[in-house]
Structures are given as structure tokens and as C-alpha cells.
């Protein structure tokens, strides 16, 4: 039999046949490894989870024209292609035009309503979102002024002449105008400037103005951290002609601040848990060594060198660390999943790489924790302990 085989036989026998004591140490390591693995999983998953939460606060990137002209659909599509499709939550193009309703001037905006719902999920609509041409979404402020509600009809008038109408022209009705009736699908409540606009579909705006493929800006919601967003914005501005991309600082800055603080908190808790695990394992191992002083004395009496004694205790400790790490990596995922489901209401991905990492960290932490207790084992005087002193 090889020496290594006997070594393994001894340390496994020690762990398996002295279950109660070793279970305490194993439990300490497994709990530490569980929290470590769970928190690391959460640490890496928080940006994704929080990113999704932050998307409900609105767009975090804006495309505008970089050359003073308007944006075209092809330019917007080219810019969108620079963003990883899986990270792009939505991209709503907007065009703003001055119009009148019952001769009252107001701002009309066209957009893609499906995309607007993705980029601005916080918009509250009393009624329905427009689902067909000829329907409009009226801002709450405008609705109050015009005294309209969902289901009413409003007539939008667009002045095709470039110069503003004089009072005389207006009285004589000599202006070149387009008008169209819209059914009010819903009243928009955002708490912001959007309440001052009437929103219509892109084809309706093109029909009213006679100008196609023209956009003032595009709002985008991208599930990415600030560094990635800045990289995307930089790439688009540099590489897509006619498009300038910039971040909505209000959203990205708060997202970044919250994420940094949350990650720092998770990191701090992880370090504290590791320290507590080390203390717990060190205490248990110290008790194990004290309890086995006679055995250490016997082994020394039989000719064991200090190195052999260290190897045997460390072997037991490291084996415990590996088993605890393996248990912890599995339990850690379950822990992280439970936290994620309760806090973020979504599941997390299992990172296979965390299994070896957790095992290695557990083994290292256990090894460090064992150093002092094992060192004390080498101080045992066989003559004294075998006599029972």
C-alpha cells in the first residue's frame, strides 16, 4: 500500500468515524461557503437584476442628430445595431411639431407606441394606448385645457407654411393647412413635460405634415451598467454618421450609485462572513486538536515527525474545506435564488465557475483557519500526554 493511500485512509476514517465533532466543523464551513457562494452570485447578478428594475425609470440613452439635421430611420437603425440586441429593452423615436387644436397652439409628438411603452414603463394611461392610426394619446395638462377625455375626438391642424400665420391670414383662412381627426384613446399621466403633448403615431404625423422619415430624437432603454453605456454611446457617436448618442445622466448616475453601494455592501458582508467562518473553523479545529492531544502524542511516540502531524491535520481540514465548499456552492445557489425571487422577483442563472471557486476559497479559508491549531499540535510532548498529564 502506498503511503498516500494510508494517508487518505487515515484522514477519511477520522472524518467518517468521528462524525459529531467533524460535522460541527463541516457545518461551519458549509454555512460560510453557502453565504459566500450565494453573495458572490448575487454580487454578479445584482447589476442585471437592478438594471431591469432601473429600466422602469425610463430611457437611459438618447440619440440626436449630430449634424443639425433631423434623424432618419436608417441612421437610427444603424446606431441601434451597435448595441447588443439582448441588452436593448426598447428604442422609441420621437418627432415634435407645432400644431393647433380648436385654434389653440400645442405640441404634437409622434412615436412608436409599442416601443414607448418599453422605454417609458412608468407612463400611466387613463384609457387605452393607441393601437391604430387615427388614435391619439393626450397629455393630462392638454386634456384639462381642451376638456377632452378618452373616447372624444380632437382635430389636429398642421400649418404647412413655414412662416407663422398673421392675424389677417388667420382671419381670412388663407393659410395652407392639413387637418385630421383623432380619437382620444387615453389620457397620459407622467408627472412630467409629456403631459403637455398630444402623441400620435408616426404614419399619422407623416400624413399630417407631408414629411416622411424625419425624427428629432430617439429614447433608448438599455440594460447595461454605466461603463457599458458610455462605451456604446462613444462607439455610436464616433462610428455612425449623423447620430450623436448620450446618456440620460439622471438615470445612469443614480443607477450607478445604487449598484456601487449595493455591491460594496454585498462585498463587505462576504468578507465578514469569511472572517466569521475562519474564526468558527479555527475554534473547532483548536477543540479537535486539544481533544486529540493523546493521539498526537501517540503518533509522535510511534515516530511521527512534526511535518507528518501537520500534514495529517491539514489534510483533514482541507478535505473538510473541499466537502464544505462543494456543499456550499450548491446551497449558495439555492440561497441566492431565494433572495433573488424574494427581492427582485426573478430567477438567477447558475454560474458553474462558482463551484470550483467556492471549493478553492473554502479550502484556502479552512487551511488558514487550521494553521494555528495545527501548529499547536506539534508542541505536544508525547511523554507527558501519554502519562495523562
Amino acid at each position: 500500500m502506498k503511503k498516500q493511500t494510508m494517508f487518505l485512509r487515515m484522514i477519511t476514517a477520522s472524518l467518517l468515524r468521528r462524525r459529531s465533532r467533524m460535522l460541527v466543523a463541516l457545518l461551519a464551513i458549509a454555512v460560510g461557503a453557502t453565504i459566500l457562494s450565494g453573495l458572490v452570485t448575487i454580487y454578479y447578478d445584482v447589476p442585471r437584476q437592478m438594471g431591469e428594475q432601473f429600466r422602469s425609470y425610463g430611457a437611459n440613452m438618447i440619440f440626436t442628430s449630430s449634424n443639425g439635421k433631423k434623424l432618419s430611420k436608417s441612421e437610427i437603425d444603424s446606431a441601434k445595431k451597435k448595441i447588443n440586441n439582448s441588452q436593448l429593452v426598447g428604442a422609441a423615436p420621437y418627432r415634435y411639431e407645432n400644431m393647433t387644436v380648436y385654434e389653440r397652439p400645442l405640441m404634437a409628438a409622434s412615436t412608436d407606441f409599442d416601443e414607448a411603452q418599453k422605454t417609458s414603463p412608468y407612463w400611466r394611461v387613463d384609457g387605452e394606448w393607441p393601437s391604430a392610426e387615427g388614435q391619439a394619446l393626450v397629455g393630462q395638462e392638454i386634456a384639462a385645457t381642451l376638456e377632452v377625455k378618452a373616447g372624444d375626438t380632437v382635430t389636429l391642424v398642421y400649418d404647412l407654411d413655414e412662416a407663422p400665420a398673421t392675424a389677417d391670414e388667420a382671419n381670412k383662412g388663407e393659410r395652407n393647412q392639413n387637418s385630421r381627426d383623432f380619437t382620444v384613446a387615453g389620457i397620459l399621466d407622467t408627472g412630467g413635460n409629456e403631459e403637455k403633448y398630444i402623441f400620435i403615431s408616426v404614419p399619422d404625423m407623416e400624413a399630417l405634415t407631408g414629411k416622411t422619415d424625419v425624427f428629432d430624437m430617439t429614447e433608448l432603454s438599455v440594460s447595461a451598467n454605466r461603463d457599458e453605456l458610455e462605451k456604446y454611446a462613444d462607439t455610436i457617436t464616433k462610428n455612425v454618421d449623423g447620430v450623436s448618442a448620450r446618456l440620460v445622466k439622471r438615470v445612469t448616475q443614480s443607477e450607478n450609485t445604487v449598484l456601487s453601494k449595493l455591491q460594496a455592501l454585498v462585498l463587505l458582508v462576504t468578507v465578514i462572513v469569511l472572517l466569521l467562518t475562519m474564526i468558527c473553523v479555527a475554534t473547532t479545529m483548536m477543540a479537535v486538536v486539544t481533544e486529540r492531544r493523546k493521539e498526537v502524542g501517540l503518533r509522535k511516540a510511534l515516530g511521527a515527525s512534526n511535518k507528518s502531524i501537520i500534514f495529517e491535520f491539514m489534510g483533514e481540514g482541507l478535505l473538510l474545506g473541499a466537502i464544505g465548499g462543494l456543499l456550499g456552492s450548491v446551497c449558495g445557489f439555492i440561497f441566492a435564488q431565494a433572495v433573488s425571487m424574494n427581492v427582485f422577483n426573478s430567477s438567477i442563472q447558475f454560474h458553474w465557475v462558482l463551484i470550483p471557486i467556492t471549493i478553492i476559497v473554502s479550502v484556502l479559508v479552512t487551511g488558514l483557519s487550521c494553521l494555528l491549531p495545527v501548529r499547536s499540535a506539534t508542541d505536544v510532548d508525547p511523554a507527558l500526554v501519554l502519562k495523562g498529564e
Partner: protein
Amino acid sequence: MSLLEIKNVSKIYGPLKALDNVNLTVENGEWLAIMGPSGSGKSTMMNIIGCMDKPSLGEVILDGVDIAKESGKKLTEIRRDKIGLIFQQFHLVNYLTAVENVMVSQYYHSMPDEKEALEALERVGLKDRAKHLPSQLSGGEQQRVCIARALINHPEIILADEPTGNLDEANENIVIDIFKQLHRQGTTLIVVTHDPEVAEVAQRTVVLEHGRLVNEIKNEGFEE
């Protein structure tokens, strides 16, 4: 040359002399009993011969090496290679089986060999109890495992400290019979005991009192 020569050995703990100018020679293949009351210095003598302690004064020549001058590491090597220890309280590793306890001694000495360990247990009549844990063995059986462990590396000296101290008469006889068998095979035995019956079966008995060697008795009726 004698296997063991103890020359003018003293062990001093402050004002106390645990051993006081002891001289003793043990020949190869001899069976020596060391007797004496409690506190006479028997255990100190045993620890010094067993390389677990060093004398304050004097020389201890074991197989030509003065172990009084060696380092702790060297003493561990000498103990591993030349001495087989048997204890009154058996001192078996409680989570290892009988055969594994014997193999532990091989492990520190050279290479563990389960077949050889089983043969050693067979010599002490315990082959069928090889897979039992110490808690599943009687006191006598545990002591026989301890003897098998002491024998396994073919040491120059078997050093037994009160080997029958915790045994009933039947088991005491079994252990003495094993010692007789070992002596016939040429093993050097040093048995520390306070039991005259155990001392009587040895070839020679030395008596310690207050750290001094006060008497030496040759067993005339010793059976070879």
C-alpha cells in the same frame, strides 16, 4: 557491545532528582524487568530509554549512539527505527480499526503493508478482530493490538510500560506468553512493572527506589 548502556544517568527537575546516577546495561536479546514503587523513577527511565526525554547528566548508548546528545528530530528517528512501545493504557487511535492501528506504525516507519499487519495480529491471536475498532475490543485485545503495533517494524527493543497494569489475570497470562514467545525469537524486552509476577518471568530484574538502582536480581529459574 551491549545493545543499551546507561552510564551515570541523572534526571534533575529543580530540587528533585528523578534519576540519580543510574548505571545499567542491557544485552541484545535480553528480557529485563524494571521494578519500583510509584515515584521511584521508572517512568523517567522509560521515557529516556524510549527517546522521549533526555537525561540531565550521563550517557545513554543505544546501539552505539549516545541518545543523550541527539536532537529531538534525531530522537524521533531513533524511536521510530529501533523502539517498539507498549503502554499500560494501550493508546490506540480510536477511529482506526485494529489492523489500521498496526499500519499507522508502519506508515511512520516505512511503507504500510496490510498483509504484514494482519500477520502481526495473527501472532497475537487477533486476526479475526482485525476490522474491529478499539471500542469493540476488550482490554486484553487492545493490549495485544498494541503489542502487534510495537512488533510490526521489527524494533531492536520492545519497551513496555506496565503492560499488564489494566488487564485481568487471563489476559495478563496471554500477554506474558506473547513476551516469552518474543524473547525466544531473540527480541530484547524491557518491561517496566510494579507487579512481581510479571517481573519474575523476566531474565533479570532491576529495582529502582528514589531514582537510584538499589537492587538487581537474576531470575535463576528463568525458562528460555
